[in-house]
């Protein structure tokens, strides 16, 4: 590694940054240093989307590189995360001063702005969608795209409509070739070793480099997507000391998916990790949809979500239910453990000094047992809301219909994501039927003594955990038939779907 400025593609040219501290955010840099004020700060914690920008990155094998464009929250991205990438802001969209980008023009035509403060962020989320999705999207995809953008004025309808209208305007794709060429140039630079504002940040490119650095700097702060650590700086004013950025480590970004086994590198973004998880086990879909927001999923990593060990980390219950193993590395040595054993206490993990999370492994269910699995999330709001209760529920049933294995894990119920041992014990060896479910529901009280807090009361959490077990049975324990009553709100449409004008 060599000390050099942070370099990225910006406004059609290579751009170098030297000076600011490595925890200076992309948003601060844009607004305060470059006076590019189209990008706004609404919350400085990655929850409102006024700061949304699009980051471009090369993906794919040598000679077949493609440009991947993703919306992220610039307010919690540290500057070194941009190294080797391309940054697009709202000022980049309009091709000429008197001509707007289709997503912008559609927002104007549909009256998609009122106060206008959130609008640049919406335009950027829509720009990413427009670039990634050549066909006019349906409502569901639009909602997901906009899950990290808050608007307090419009009620969203004109924005949703504008999204579709943009596809009716003459197509105006980004010219990717110069961007790709520039990113290839940047890829030739040595790994980033950055010093600014009296602080250092290292961005190793290989697992070996990372392992060596980590042993040498056991106290350095690891930063992957920054969607959690970013807030320590913007909200708590913490000094992170020396930093190791994980975003450039190639091996950590690999996904190996086979029929029997899925291994997800710790640096894989939540967006990519959920795509792999859903491909491996379709019942991840709902959790993948409701987990955080699109910009947060584009930056944050599954490894980071697992490693920070939050009691309300939404992915862990489902991972634990599926028997996920976590791979840790120190130097060249690796070790594996069941994910539930990784969590020791509130925000305390089994990670040792000099060690880091390398990957997560899931295995396909073993025949002849049949695995039934669901993941659930309950929160005040459908999108981008930390759960009151999250559940990952798996039972393995034999040919007699008896439960031979059960892994039932909940988030929001204890200081760590935790299996429901008493509940599992109450159900093991019994048939998968209402009586067993009732026994399991009753036993949950022995497993958990949750807190009351801003998201829910203890009583609600306990009741809902039990009710989710009931739902699990309702959804998996019976033959489903076409006329069966709905079990989920997401299945519904208005009762008589005739729209009168």
């Amino acid at each position, binding site marked *: 590694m060599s000390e050099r400025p942070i370099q990225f593609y910006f406004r059609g040219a290579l751009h170098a940054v030297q000076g600011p501290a490595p925890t200076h955010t992309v948003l601060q840099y844009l607004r305060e240093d470059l006076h590019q*004020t189209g990008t706004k700060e*609404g919350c400085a914690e990655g*929850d409102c989307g006024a700061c949304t920008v699009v980051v471009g990155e090369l993906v794919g094998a040598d000679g077949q590189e493609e440009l991947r464009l993703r919306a992220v929250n610039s307010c919690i991205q540290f500057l070194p995360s941009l190294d080797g990438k391309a940054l697009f802001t709202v000022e980049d*969209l309009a091709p000429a001063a008197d001509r707007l980008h289709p997503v912008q023009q559609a927002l*104007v035509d549909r009256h998609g*702005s009122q106060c206008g403060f959130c609008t640049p962020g919406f335009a950027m989320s829509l720009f990413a969608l427009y670039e990634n999705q050549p066909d006019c999207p349906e409502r569901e995809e639009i909602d997901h795209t906009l899950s990290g953008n808050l608007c307090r004025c419009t009620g*969203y309808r004109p924005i949703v409509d504008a999204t579709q209208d943009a596809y009716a305007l003459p197509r105006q794709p980004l010219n990717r070739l110069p961007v790709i060429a520039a990113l290839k140039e940047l890829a030739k630079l040595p790994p980033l070793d950055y010093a600014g504002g009296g602080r250092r940040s290292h961005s190793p490119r290989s697992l070996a480099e990372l392992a060596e650095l980590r042993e040498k700097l056991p106290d350095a702060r690891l930063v992957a997507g920054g969607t959690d650590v970013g807030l320590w700086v913007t909200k708590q004013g913490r000094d992170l000391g020396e930093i190791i950025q994980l975003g450039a480590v190639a091996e950590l970004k690999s996904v190996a998916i086979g029929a029997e086994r899925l291994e997800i590198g710790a640096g894989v973004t939540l967006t990519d990790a959920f795509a792999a998880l859903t491909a491996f086990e379709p019942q991840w879909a709902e959790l993948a949809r409701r987990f955080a927001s699109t910009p947060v999923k584009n930056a944050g990593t599954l490894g980071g979500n697992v490693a920070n060990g939050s009691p309300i980390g939404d992915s862990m219950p489902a991972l634990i239910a599926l028997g996920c193993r976590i791979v840790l590395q120190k130097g060249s040595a690796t070790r594996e453990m069941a994910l539930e054993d990784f969590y020791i206490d509130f925000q305390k993990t089994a990670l040792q000094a000099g060690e880091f999370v390398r990957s997560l492994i899931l295995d396909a269910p073993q025949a002849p047992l049949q695995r039934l699995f669901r993941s659930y999330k309950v929160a005040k*709001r459908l999108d*981008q809301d930390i759960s009151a209760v999250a559940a990952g529920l798996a039972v393995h049933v034999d040919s007699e219909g008896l439960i031979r294995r059960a892994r039932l894990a909940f988030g929001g119920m204890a200081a760590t994501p935790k299996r429901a041992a008493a509940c599992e014990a109450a159900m093991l060896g019994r048939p998968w039927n209402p009586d067993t479910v009732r026994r399991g529901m009753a036993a949950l009280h022995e497993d958990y003594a949750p807190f009351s807090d801003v998201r829910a009361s203890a009583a609600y959490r306990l009741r809902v955990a039990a009710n989710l077990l009931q739902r699990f049975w309702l959804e998996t324990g019976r033959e489903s038939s076409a006329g069966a009553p709905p079990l989920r*709100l997401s299945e519904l449409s208005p009762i008589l779907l005739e729209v009168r004008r």
Partner: protein
Amino acid sequence: MSSHPSFSGAIVGRPVAHESAHLHVSGQATYIDDQSELAGTLHAAPGLATCARGRIKHLDLSAVRAYPGVRCVITAADIPGENNCGPILHDDPIIAGDEIQFYGQVIFAVAAETRDAARQAVRLAKVEYEVETPILDMDAAIAAESWVLPPFAMQRGPVDTAFAEAPHHLSGTASVGGQEHFYLEGQISYVQPKEDQTLHLICSTQHPTEMQQLVAHALGWRAHQVSVECRRMGGAFGGKESQSAQWACLAAILAVNTGKPVKIRLDRDDDMIATGKRHGFQYAWESAFDDAGRLLGLKLEMASNCGCSADLSGPVNDRSICHIDNAYYLDAVTLRSLRCKTNTVSNTAFRGFGGPQGMFLIETVLDDIARHLGRDPLEVRQINFYDVAPGARSTTPYGMTVEDNIAPALVAELAASCDYAARRTAIAEFNKSSPIIKRGLALTPVKFGISFNATHYNQAGALVHVYTDGTVLVSHGGTEMGQGLYTKIRQIVAQEFGLPLTDVRLSSTDTSRVANTSATAASSGTDLNGKAAQAACQNIKARLAAFVVDLCQGKVAADDVTFVDGRVKAGAAYDAAFPELVMAAYRARLQLWDAGFYRTPKIHFDPLSKLGRPFFYFAYGASASEVAIDTLTGEMRLLRVDILHDVGRSINPTLDIGQIEGGFIQGMGWLTSEELWWQTDGSQAGRLMTHAPSTYKIPTASDLPEVFNVRLYDNANIEDSIHRSKAVGEPPFMLALSVFQAIREAVAATLPAGSQVRLNAPATPETILRAVEAGREIGV
């Protein structure tokens, strides 16, 4: 870049784009923090109390002062003038002295060379408190008789007789939570010292004049030393009416102390902790009614959580009193209105300003009656409506005759167009066979009074400049917060002069151009400033018309002169392009600019008896919402909404529909996902824990219903409002009450017939599940 259609004919009534839309989408619209900073600008941050009630024993700011980059630290002792930012009562310190009244109250402020330095520095304060037990909720305040303003009691009609004679009686309690404004642009002020003891403030504020006065008072200065300017706000919703001034005052004091420009931009968490919200309310009532569900009498105690000071709580509570009737005739009412003082942030204006809380009550009272009688709630609502033509059932509890009642017709039209009856039947069928998911449908009306209750606020001024090239620049007293006020004023002025929109621009709102402005609030922006701007245009037009008469040597009358399609004509005698006439008038030394003034006619209100005609007219609307609830988790989904809303004769239908849709979704948030949550005990008691969007959940795009039919009701204002339009900012907010009532319907579907639904707002999943399970325990 914007796509204004080519000009022809009337501009008022056309769905033209927001005047800044092309700037919004391209990031070129300039908000306060986007403006280039003057050299030497310092950045301020407030230091907030970490105790809800008590006294400061010791405040050690030495580490704050020593932090690198800090240039000035102020406490209450450093305020040269009056230490108050309360708009009515002077009970709101800019910086708390010794006495702490809520967790998050400002106790000092810092100006530093960077915003980061200021924010880091404030963390270093060492404060010791003598902690007292805080009053954190309305029950505790009522028990302690802790009020920001004395309770108000009133009686209208023969209540005791009505109760004695009525065949049915019910009683109930309910509560509704507060609401964070969550304007996307937080509070911000940028203060620029000018020569000879004057200041210019660039602020995100709905009330430049009040800010001017409060800043002047804080400095011990006079009004003409301070000017306040606002081009646009990134949202406000009432949150920048009275509560933007405190931050301006802090920055102004720091600017005067340092001689430097000072900007204060609150961090989102500080903003949510230290600025007031919508008032939470709680109610206890008894109702008396007949077999048909006609309300014969109502006894009501209605308490509001005002927080630690009066702020605008008096007028907010007055408006709630003036809206407990909604669209319904109340024969006989006793009311006790309690204005609770608690150790929480002082609550303030928020879209609807007490109106939503008043209507929430009556809609729940009527819904209970319908359920008790086994009747369709819509039927019960309808038979309680005011008379259409002023008659026996036309006088409001505050003594005003309802002369423009269109609620019955509007509601009937909506009920038909949304298939209310058929869907209600279909939903009942669905619910019978669906044990886990239950649906509910409700249709509720809105009648909202337009005008500030305080009569003297109902005035406005405007200043219109016609330049010699025929272009027009308009200033007025209203502020733009996204609602489209500037766009509507531009349309009104363009229409007066017969000019294309491109020839008319709006300047920023500035107390040095138009003085003594009222807050842009109470939905009144266009009503007041539109009339004022029109008056200014008419003054200029009158002068130009007289000039044309002179040019035609009296062969035409002034009345013959028309301003249409960019030309000025007088029969066959005169025809010139507008700029041509204007230049000629200039050369003839005619005044081409003028001011206009407007005061709303007919209105009067006695704040003591709460009687009078506080409102110039009423705006009406109705909505039907279909929801579904999940009885395992309490989660809710809004499936379909139909709205029919009265904006009079619309000046701009698109802007009006934007207000309706946006207001509705915001109201839905208030009643469903938006929950304010404070620590109730321990050392952090009184600390707001929902102080960021991570914990405070406003609606997102996925909360928009699958079907959302919104239409304007064809109806000219019977009063002489600007172009016979009606105000639209606040009324649609209350359309969301149909969502809450629909949730009650869905909950009721889980209960034995005739059971009462006990549901408070916000109807979070937990609240809904509790209502479902409470009913099950009682019912089974």
